[in-house]
């Protein structure tokens, strides 16, 4: 019976070669070094080899160790075998073998989202890279710092349609912050350093380092630079003092102020500064989907999420504010609705963002402040404390009275007496059972919106989801990345029966590494988000949105060696969650299949093309 891992054979063939130097025909070279998956046609090429300090593969591995990388999420293949061989020989970081390269990148991305450190993925050339692209684009859209090392065919083979060759730099160019093709092993260490710097600084983002196979066995002196100069790269850090003064002045003059805080607050680790500023001013605040947790959700000043599925009070306050402070948020189309409608009301806008191109892109701004949000907020706090003027209390009181009126609509209410499980109820109970202290990942769809609306995040980096690209399938690999980073934390993946199937194979990875994530499937047998649009805008013609032939998720979980639960009745929801998070199952991966109301919709909702204040509310239907 198969099932046992073969014993490793530790023989070092390359030692023999290492001692000499000189010219070798390509063919012999590949034979000697054990490379046999090279493309044909190079047998007459001569290659100079002089073995010195380290091979390219060693350099990659040592750079990762120098960066303090804890986990590399990856999948091997021909082009990266030398790198894998070096991984085998080291113990500085742990390699996590996923079951699909997309999941490797998602897991690295979630590691970065939850820890604030750079996530790392390693994939082979060709299909390894194309599988990784969705993960890279997902990280790109949400500005997540990751470094993806990709294998490439040997440099002499590039451009010859070699086996497993794709133009990695070309394919990934539009969805990376930057990418590199390393053609010379001498450039490898500095390139790795640059990759980490670029990924993590300024507006963060994914960086791809494409390493041809021959570069991984060429050698050079290895020294990992402490830093590298890049004359073409210098993100702005400090805000402009004049602009910040104007901003503070404007805030103090406001009658109907509003703070709109986005993912930049989380990415820039500025939630403390944001909280201090917001409390000092006494202003209402709203978070974008990406900004959740950037300001405590349970705080009275927080009006909840805004946007397409934002709360009534947040969207109304946003629309009717006279001074808007946007912090690390990019006026996304899912957030402001129709920009022409948004512009109908007069308001002055202050916009803090580290990326100048985020400012005045979709909405004209009066006071742009380019800089890192933490620095800018710290400086603005100092200015505020020095200012002689104080916020206009009378105006603020009137504004809060209005806001409370909007809030009293209780726009997130739902039927609590339903005999069918309401998805909102599951999320609320999850929040209770985990005492609001879990890391929650989600997939994409209605369940994502309910997670955002009903799990009240009080801390940053707890809510891990794909906002910009909206990638179904992220939930499970995201949960893996988070759980590995925080082995003792409660990690829940709120998902749908459709999304979970997009990376279901990762249950196997969870088994191998004993990753005890808890999957909360809100199973409505539909691509609910698609079905909702079809109900509203396509005359209830549910074209291809019904998920037929679903697997028995309980058996499936068990087949992968996990615990499966199916929950059909509202009265069983709480007990199931409690059991899943009980000490007895702390070490186990638990898959909960909640059979939820198929007809439930996400409210409030701003239809495409409509204004923010033109929401459809649950009661209106």
């Amino acid at each position: 019976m198969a099932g046992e891992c073969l014993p490793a054979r530790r023989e070092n063939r390359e030692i023999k070669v290492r001692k000499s130097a000189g010219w070798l025909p390509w063919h012999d070279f590949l034979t000697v070094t054990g490379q046999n998956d090279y493309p044909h046609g190079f047998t007459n090429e001569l290659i100079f080899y002089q073995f010195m300090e380290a091979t390219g593969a060693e350099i990659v591995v040592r750079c990762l160790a120098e960066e303090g990388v804890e986990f590399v999420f990856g999948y091997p293949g021909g082009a990266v075998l030398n790198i894998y061989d070096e991984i085998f020989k080291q113990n500085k970081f742990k390699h996590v073998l996923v079951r699909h390269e997309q999941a490797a990148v998602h897991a690295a991305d979630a590691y970065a989202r939850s820890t604030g450190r750079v996530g790392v993925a390693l994939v082979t050339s060709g299909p390894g890279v194309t599988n990784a692209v969705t993960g890279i684009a997902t990280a790109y859209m949400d500005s997540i710092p990751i470094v993806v090392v990709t294998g490439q065919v040997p440099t002499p083979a590039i451009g010859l349609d070699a086996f497993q060759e794709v133009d990695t730099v070309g394919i990934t160019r539009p969805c990376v912050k930057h990418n590199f093709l390393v053609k010379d092993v001498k450039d490898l260490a500095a390139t790795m350093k640059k990759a980490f710097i670029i990924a993590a600084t300024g507006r963060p983002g994914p960086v791809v380092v494409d390493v041809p196979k021959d570069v991984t066995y060429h050698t050079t002196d290895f020294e990992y630079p402490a830093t590298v100069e890049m004359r073409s790269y210098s993100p702005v850090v400090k805000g402009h003092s004049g602009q910040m003064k104007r901003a503070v002045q404007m805030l103090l003059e406001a009658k109907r102020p509003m703070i709109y805080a986005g993912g930049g607050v989380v990415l820039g680790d500025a939630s403390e500064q944001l909280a201090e500023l917001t409390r000092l001013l006494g202003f209402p605040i709203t978070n974008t989907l990406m900004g959740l947790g950037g300001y405590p959700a349970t705080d009275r000043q927080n009006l909840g999420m805004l946007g397409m599925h934002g709360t009534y009070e947040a969207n109304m306050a946003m629309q009717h504010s006279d001074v808007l402070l946007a912090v690390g948020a990019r006026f996304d189309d899912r957030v402001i609705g129709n920009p022409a409608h948004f512009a109908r009301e007069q308001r002055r806008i202050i916009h803090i963002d580290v990326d100048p191109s985020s400012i005045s892109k979709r909405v004209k701004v009066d006071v742009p402040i380019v800089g890192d949000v933490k620095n800018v907020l710290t400086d603005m706090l100092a200015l505020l404390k020095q200012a002689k003027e104080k916020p206009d209390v009378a105006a603020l009181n009137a504004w809060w009275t209005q806001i409370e009126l909007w809030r009293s609509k209780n726009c997130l209410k739902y039927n609590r007496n339903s005999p069918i499980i309401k998805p909102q109820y599951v999320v609320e109970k999850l929040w209770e059972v985990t005492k609001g202290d879990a890391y929650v990942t989600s997939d994409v769809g209605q369940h994502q919106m309910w997670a955002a609306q009903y799990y009240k995040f009080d801390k940053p980096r707890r809510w891990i989801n794909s906002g910009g690209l909206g990638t179904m399938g992220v939930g499970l690999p995201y949960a893996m990345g988070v759980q590995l980073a925080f082995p003792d934390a409660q990690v829940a993946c709120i998902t749908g029966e459709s999304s979970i199937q997009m990376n279901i194979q990762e249950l196997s990875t969870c088994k191998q590494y004993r990753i005890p994530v808890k999957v909360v499937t809100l199973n409505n047998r539909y691509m609910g988000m698609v079905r909702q649009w079809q109900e509203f805008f396509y005359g209830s013609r549910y074209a291809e949105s019904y998920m037929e032939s679903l697997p028995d998720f309980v058996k499936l979980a068990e087949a992968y060696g996990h615990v499966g639960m199916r929950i059909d009745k509202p009265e069983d929801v709480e007990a199931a969650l409690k059991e899943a998070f009980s000490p007895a199952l702390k070490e186990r991966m638990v898959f909960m299949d909640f059979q939820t109301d198929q007809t439930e919709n996400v409210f409030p909702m701003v239809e495409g093309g409509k204004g923010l204040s033109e929401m459809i509310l649950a009661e209106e239907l």
Partner: protein
Amino acid sequence: MSRRHIISLLMENEAGALSRVAGLFSARAYNIESLTVAPTEDATLSRMTIVTVGSEDIIEQITKQLNKLVDVIKVMDLTEGSHIERELMLVKLRAMGADREEIKRTADIFRGNIIDVTESTYTIELTGAGSKLDAFLEAIDSAFILETVRTGASGIGRGERSLKI
């Protein structure tokens, strides 16, 4: 209101840098009227001139997005100040009999040089702003034109206005 802008930039002279700029323009659906690039006196730097058309908002985004590219060192919108714009054009013309004199006269008026002559053709070299080159082509009977090749505009600021690192 859309206007024509000439954007100059300095970037690392590295493989792939040009495709980052070209890719940016196509991915974000910005117009490119022309794009020229060559290394500078410092071989590690390339200088690029891009002629584009767009509203103020779009041009602002274009310069911000260009600046954001990691390989790009400096960006300048030449059309924001006084500047000089030049383009080189080579035109091959059917030139026979009496037409030869006529074509030569027109070339002289436009300060063009005849740089290749055969019994039946002239090849003329012409530099100037794009509009001057257009005017030349309009002045010549289109039936004579066998081939034209233009480099696209290069631009430089006047006086002390320079794009340097």
